């Protein structure tokens, strides 16, 4: 019995079990009888009881949560600063892509200065010139083939007329000058035809160029409009973010001031 009491005295684990009444009936009996004879342990228990009763004074602030699960629970959970940068980055990337395409198309000049982002187009003569040059060979080739064909026809007709002439010579004998005259007229006529064709082709070409210019102009306008829109949107987003930052700053300053 004596040794048991010695073990019990000052045994924190046993005292705590007794304090919260989490010990067997036998153990409780032992501790109770120990407390009768040991003033130190009895005082300890009473003081701990006093601390426990003090702890009951601590009640959390009244505002308590009222959570509700809604169907979009997953997306709703991610705060704005998680989703926003990704979205802005995506937009920025898209804008950059559009800009890059536009730059390659329209010789854009972009400067970033005190007045903000400035986009200027450099779509002028120099850029149209290469297009002209590049388009010409095709037209020339067409013309060449046409001229070739005409030359062949001309040669044929000349051969025919030559045989006719020889026949006529044989018939008329002295009318050599007349055959020469026919040849000249024929050459003249063919030359006229060739000239006419050439003119027609040039007109057609001019028309096609005009059309091409119009189309690129329309495309350019559309691209510029799109870039403008994207940049505006981007600016809107950054402005919203700046406002949010300001709000956060205000809040922090307010909280710091309290």
């Amino acid at each position, binding site marked *: 019995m004596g040794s048991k009491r010695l073990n019990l005295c000052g045994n*924190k*684990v046993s*005292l*705590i*079990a007794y304090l*919260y*009444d*989490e010990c067997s009936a036998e153990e*409780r009996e032992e501790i*109770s009888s120990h*407390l*009768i004879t040991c*003033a130190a342990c*009895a*005082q300890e*228990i*009473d*003081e*701990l*009881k*006093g*601390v*426990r*009763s*003090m*702890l*009951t*004074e*601590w*009640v*959390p*602030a009244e*505002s*308590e*949560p*009222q*959570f*509700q*699960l809604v*169907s979009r*629970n997953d997306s709703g*959970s991610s705060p704005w600063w998680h989703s926003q940068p990704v979205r802005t980055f995506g937009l920025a990337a898209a804008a950059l892509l559009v800009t890059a395409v536009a730059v390659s198309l329209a010789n854009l000049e972009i400067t970033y200065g005190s007045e903000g982002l400035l986009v200027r187009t450099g779509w002028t003569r120099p850029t149209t010139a290469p297009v002209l040059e590049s388009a010409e060979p095709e037209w020339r080739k067409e013309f060449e083939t046409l001229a070739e064909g005409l030359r062949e026809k001309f040669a044929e007709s000349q051969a025919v007329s030559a045989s006719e002439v020889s026949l006529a010579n044989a018939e008329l004998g002295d009318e050599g000058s007349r055959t020469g005259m026919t040849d000249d007229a024929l050459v003249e006529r063919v030359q006229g035809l060739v000239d006419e064709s050439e003119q027609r082709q040039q007109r057609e070409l001019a028309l096609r160029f005009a059309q091409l210019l119009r189309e690129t102009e329309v495309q350019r306008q559309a691209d510029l409009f799109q870039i403008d829109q994207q940049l505006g949107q981007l600016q809107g987003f950054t402005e919203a973010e700046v406002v949010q930052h300001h709000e*956060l*700053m205000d809040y*922090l*300053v307010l*909280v*710091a001031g*309290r």
Partner: protein
Amino acid sequence: MGTLVDTMSWTDEELVARCVEGDTESFNALMQRWERPIYRLAYRLIGREDDAHDVCQETFLRAFRGLKKFRSEAKFSSWLYRIAINLCRDWVRRERRTPVVAAPEGIDILDLAPADDTSESIQDLVERRELGGVVAKAMKVLSKEQRTAIVLKEYHGFTFQEISNLLDCPESTIKTRVYHGLSQLRGEFRRLGLSNSSVRVEAGLSQSRVNQLSARES
């Protein structure tokens, strides 16, 4: 109204099973049942209302996402408490190392530091006999292990066995933590000149009285 009565009578585990089958309303019933205890736990472990809200919300979010992994090997409430305790532990650890938001330029971090605490000193609270505030402040002197053990024991009524399961420590360790925590609080209250409101062993108090009181306690 009928459904409300139904969910009220169901056990946590039944509600979990229903939720896993796709009935999200059962999860709302579970939240309704446990949000207050979990919030109070977080509030007492962290000490700040808004952070306690955040931890509470995160606890339910994690529980909802991991509900399929919950295999009723434990009680749902124990599982929920475990999540909340771990989140609070992480929160306290993170809070010590880094500020929540990087300090903006021109603002000294030290100016921001006391913002989380009320300006009232513990002595003010003692004078006004606002014992709840005194306890809240005194609890901050405890180590987080002692604090967790005392909060779970005093305010959530877990047995030592249950706490030892929740915290993965031997029962005797939990009892020792509670003992040292209470002793430290006693020292703190004494230092503040607070006499315990419950029975104290006064000089001359007879042993029989002590006996009587212990008998009544048990």
